[in-house]
């Protein structure tokens, strides 16, 4: 018994170090949840025999990469937002990757010009409005969310969440700071309750009648529409229309999840193979099927559920322009007291 306990403890202690030696592998720090990307990584290992080691770090990945420095075992950093990709680049922990495959698969708008990061999937930030209580023609743009006629009828996730910060940063990038402040103030004034919960919880609140309109990323809709585990979520989803905002203007704000190769990585070739794999049809299809995201690669068939929402015009602002305004956007949220 004593020996067994000892072995168990030793096994646990060196669990991390042991796996870093074998030959064909690639090491990943991920902001995206394991249950989302495990199927993709398994497909990669099956196709290439390269083992993928992963740590899911939602907060603090940047600090870990920085403090590990050149000895960091990580080959790749996977993020769920453009802002975090840009932060990694600014911190100097990323090295450029060049690949004809990636240049072909990923539109220039969604990758760094020098190959420092690559977008892998797209998600649109859309408006969800109650089917009965809100007429389709009533709300067509983000600006409408700030219209006083919706006073007490809007629900929102925290104004400090990356998705809302990116949306506000996009408004700064496309319409300027003054417009962004006015918009944030207007939405704040319309809120039915203090910002709380995730995107799904907002739709739930609309379903339950706490409010009529909210913002959300597209894939949450797909997740709710097909949730066999929690069938009540299908009812939530069925109670709202998806509205792609700003179709008559610049188009809907689109964010990306993406990947970057880290400076310390010891398996650069495998790292490129994994990024390329993630940009190819097989993986792009898995992304679309597993998480209802929009493929970054043109020509990949979207999930039927996603297709049912219709096509839309996406905004064409270079995605990195948005990231530049994130700090300012965060501060504006404080200034208008969005979460108070």
């Amino acid at each position, binding site marked *: 018994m004593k020996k067994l306990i000892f072995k168990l403890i030793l096994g646990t202690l060196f669990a991390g*170090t042991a796996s870093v030696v074998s030959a064909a592998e690639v090491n990943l720090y991920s902001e995206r949840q394991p249950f989302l990307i495990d199927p993709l990584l398994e497909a990669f290992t099956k196709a290439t025999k390269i083992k993928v080691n992963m740590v899911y*770090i939602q907060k603090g990945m940047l*600090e*870990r990469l920085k403090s590990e420095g050149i000895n960091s075992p990580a080959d790749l950093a996977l993020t769920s937002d453009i802002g975090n990709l840009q932060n990694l680049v600014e911190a100097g922990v990323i090295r450029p990757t060049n690949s004809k495959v990636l240049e072909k698969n990923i539109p220039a708008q969604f990758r760094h010009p020098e190959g420092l990061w690559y977008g892998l999937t797209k998600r649109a930030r859309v408006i969800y409005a109650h089917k009965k209580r809100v007429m389709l023609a009533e709300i067509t743009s983000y600006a409408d969310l700030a219209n006083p006629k919706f006073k007490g009828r809007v629900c929102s996730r925290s104004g400090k969440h990356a998705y809302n910060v990116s949306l506000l940063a996009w408004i700064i990038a496309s319409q300027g700071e003054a417009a962004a402040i006015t918009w944030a103030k207007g939405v704040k004034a319309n809120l039915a309750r203090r*910002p709380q919960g995730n995107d799904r919880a907002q739709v739930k*609140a609309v*379903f339950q*009648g706490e409010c009529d309109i909210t913002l959300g990323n597209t894939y949450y809709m797909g997740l709710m529409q097909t949730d066999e585990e929690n069938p009540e979520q299908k009812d939530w989803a069925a109670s709202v229309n998806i509205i792609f905002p700003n179709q008559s203007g610049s188009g809907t704000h689109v964010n990306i999840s993406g990947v970057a190769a880290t400076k310390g990585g010891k398996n650069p070739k495998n790292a490129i193979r994994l990024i390329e794999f993630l940009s190819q049809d097989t993986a792009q299809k898995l992304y679309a099927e597993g998480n209802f995201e929009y493929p970054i690669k043109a020509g990949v068939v979207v999930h039927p559920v996603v297709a049912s929402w219709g096509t839309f015009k996406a905004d064409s602002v270079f995605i990195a322009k948005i990231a530049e305004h994130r700090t300012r956007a965060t501060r504006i949220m404080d200034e208008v*007291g969005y979460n108070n």
Partner: protein
Amino acid sequence: MGGRHSEVTVSMSPTSASKREVWSWINGWNIGAVIISAIVILPIATVIFIGLTPNDDIWSHLASTVLPLYIATTLQLMIGVGLGTLVIGVGTAWLVSMCRFPGKRIFEWALLLPLAVPAYVIAYVYTDILEFAGPIQSLLRETFGWTSKKAYWFPEIRSLGGAISMMTLVLYPYVYLLSRAAFMEQSVCVLEASRVLGRSPLRSFFSVALPLARPAIVIGISLVLMETLNDFGTVDFFAVSTFTLGIYDVWLNMNNVAGAAQLATALLAFVMFLVLVERFARHKQRFHNMTAKYTDLPRYELQGSKRYLATICCAFPVVFGFIIPAGVLTGFAVLHFESAANADVFRFAGNSVILSGLAAIFAVAIGTFMAYAVRLGRGRLLGALVRFASMGYAVPGSVLAVGVLVSLGALDNGIDGFMRKNIGISTGLLFSGTIVAVTFGYLVRFLALAFGTVEASLGKITPSMDGAARSLGHNPLSTLRRIHLPLIRGSVLAAAILVFVDSMKELPMTVILRPFNFQTLATYVHQFASDEQLGEASFAALAIVCFGILPVIILSFAITRSRPGFPIEVKVP
């Protein structure tokens, strides 16, 4: 002080050959405590240091916008949780220690159960039940025909009040545990004296037992408040704008880790200020038991309706802090059995148990060592240093994790650079991203639990005991082993279990510091819970609770038996 030295010298001289050895032995405690303190302080110091690196000024922005709100909310949260845990913790501890009423034997251990429920889990559970879309409000709407939210009033769970309730329900066991141990360790003489002098049981409680238990209660409350201050999961979920939420906001949304470190340092300074104020208020008071008379505690036999009132008072926190959340989780786990229960969960449970066990062993060994070194040394400087070393508990987990990351990274890269330069080989990262790093993180974070608990207990042993043992020829180590440890073993065990249970629940440090492909129950719950998918997380969440219950129950029995003079434990030398 000089007298103490000669005393030791005399006690050692029969066996040791040279005085030099004696001197090194005397200093061994001090030097050891200083070195360990320095190692443990390193990550905390690193956080302070990060705050000094160049960065955008955040203070003027915060001061003109959300800082007043952060501070007001945080103070309200502290006062609410502090009062709530004080009343529930001390009240129930007194009832089960001193009174007889139906269910007392069960409540002795059951009152500890909420300790096993992580605050973020209880927050998810109650939101599910109490929110607008939850079963209770839905039922009310159906029953009374209300159609909208505006038609009726119902307490909003996602609010400051909600956060206070959730935290009180899972944190009061700290106060209960420590004050119960204190009541159990109190000499019966003082209580008898009070009763003989005509005080009623209630007045004896307020004028004798409570003041005597004060050091333990204060430590319990300060643990609660530190836990309240560094909480992120609950306040984030409830969208309650606390100072800690502000720290995360500056760090992650404004991408300003130095600014976040400054805020964390300010928080730390605030906590140290509180600790100092309390110590000053307790100035020169000593709490040793001067007699060794420990007969059975007098139990007040409660009469009539009071009996049931006591039962209800004790049942309340157990039902709301444990039975309801555990019941809801069990319901979810059954409902989602196929997707929630898989072999991985058991592997993760193994990881959690081993890590938490290691953390508990190290924290208690080091905590006891330091508490004893402080007792031996009596120097103010050493005491201050050791107390600072246990401040990790007051720093928000992720921020402290960054401190650990940066200090271990610097150490690893330093060693690597040295080896490359001089020997030509690269050692890479030795500690970063290993279980050693995670365990170290736990130690830094939870040392306060071990140190505080042991120190409070040691404080009740009169120094004349030390004197007696030492004059009979025992060195400090032998005195600790043969006199103090047997007297404080209940508290030592309590410390070990507190650290164990807290490590089982620990999330932010594990997430940042862990190796590749490594999950604990808490990180597994987190990946689903962060997406509000409680169903998928339910089985693992229940596992955290179950693994927490077992040691908690062991602990409770140990405390009952730990009472000095408890018949079974009397040893004839």
